[in-house]
């Protein structure tokens, strides 16, 4: 066992915490719990989007030693409803990411032609899968997913789960917030439950 990929100790904000957890490379931690329990707050603190105190280490390097944009490019958070800020999906990718995007699209049953469509013309499910591609195109070391399959049909759910399994095998560390017990069993190596802004170990 080497260095953990992500290690946080006593992570706390005025709204939630303290949270402590460790995540190894290739490991998937699933988090379940009722809406409003603080799951999204935890993910926002992990990617340093909300002010928080406590210690966070990425591959043993303290967060304070890593510039915030670099931290967030390595610890990527994908909210339950991804926002798009440009007219088409294609415009959200950097030129260097396009090769990877083209590899990922068929794995999620998406046609490359969707890249050039107006975002508003994509279906909710297409947008949700496109958001996962947008997150993976950053080549994150840790991915924080908030209900990535909530709006998907069973085939698409299976495609997303297959892709995530492949990414995990390639070394991605994943924290997955999901309401689906089946998905937690399929992907999770460990499970935790969030209740009243407190995190406890549970079965995946």
């Amino acid at each position, binding site marked *: 066992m080497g260095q953990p990929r992500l290690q946080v100790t006593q992570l706390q904000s005025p709204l939630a915490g303290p949270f402590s957890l460790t995540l190894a490379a290739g490991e998937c931690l699933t988090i379940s719990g009722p809406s409003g329990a603080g799951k999204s707050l935890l993910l926002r603190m992990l*990617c*340093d*989007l*909300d*002010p928080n105190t406590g210690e966070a280490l990425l591959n043993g390097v303290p967060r304070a030693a890593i510039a*915030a*944009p*670099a931290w*967030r*490019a*390595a610890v*990527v*958070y*994908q*909210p339950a*409803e*991804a*926002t*798009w*800020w440009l007219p088409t999906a294609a415009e959200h990718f950097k030129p260097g990411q396009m090769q990877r995007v083209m590899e990922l699209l068929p794995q999620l049953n998406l046609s490359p032609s969707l890249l050039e469509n107006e975002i508003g013309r994509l279906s909710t499910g297409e947008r949700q899968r496109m958001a996962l591609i*947008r*997150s993976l195109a*950053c080549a994150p070391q840790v991915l924080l997913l908030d209900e990535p399959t909530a709006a998907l049909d069973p085939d698409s759910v299976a495609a997303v789960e297959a892709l995530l399994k492949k990414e995990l095998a390639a070394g991605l560390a994943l924290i997955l917030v999901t309401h689906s017990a089946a998905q937690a069993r399929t992907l999770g190596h460990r499970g935790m439950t969030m209740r009243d802004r407190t995190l406890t170990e549970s079965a995946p």
Partner: protein
Amino acid sequence: MSGIAAPIQPGAVDLAVASSLVVLNAAISAWLGLRMQRQMLWSALRMVVQLLLVGLVLRWVFALASPAATIAVALLMIAAAAREVATRPAHGLRGWAGVWLSTASVGLSSIATVLLALLTVLHPTPWYEPQYAIPLIGIVLGNVLNSASIGLDTFYGGAVNARGAIEAQLVLGATRNEALAPLIRDSVRKGLIPIINQMSAAGIITLPGIMTGQILAGMDPMDAVRYQILLMFLLAGGSGISVTLAVYLAARSITDERHRLRLERLRQR
């Protein structure tokens, strides 16, 4: 006098006759049930009292001709404009940050443009001659205030509305400058529109106020026009500096060193 008649000075009776138009407005408001008659009369009364006081103060400051008095009046005007910029937009920074931001943007832009005009273009003797310095800073402040408050209104409102889009870029590793760039551009652009409109409409759609005033006061139209052109350039410069400064300072103020969006630093009015 080359065909220009001596200026006609309106007297108290003339002003009273003209004020009947405000009374007419109030009557229309009452008739249509607009409930603006009180506001109309009150603001007209305020205007009269404010302008009479300013006239007295200016007469006194002009007579003093001391740099200290001129600077004191200029600072007072800047403080009033800064207060307006801090309170006018629908959102503002909590605490002293908002006051500091508006004072810096309004103060620096107006002082820089007026000093430039006094020292390199008009050069009155002495350079702080209040008859030039004070009207100049007054008209520059009026424009600078407008640009800065439009820019800030657009920026703060945009940041609140586009929170999701800004954070979506931040979570993918964008810096705060990258994530806010479109909003910053849009806000500065909006703040510059009034002065661009003013310049392009000048002379065709409107006769600018200063020029009109000078012509009414007996100045040759071409001299008045030259003054107006100079002023327009000053106003354009002042507007540009103030809105840019205000929006960039605002962008710093609602983000932190960890490139997070800190909208809790804003309060809604």
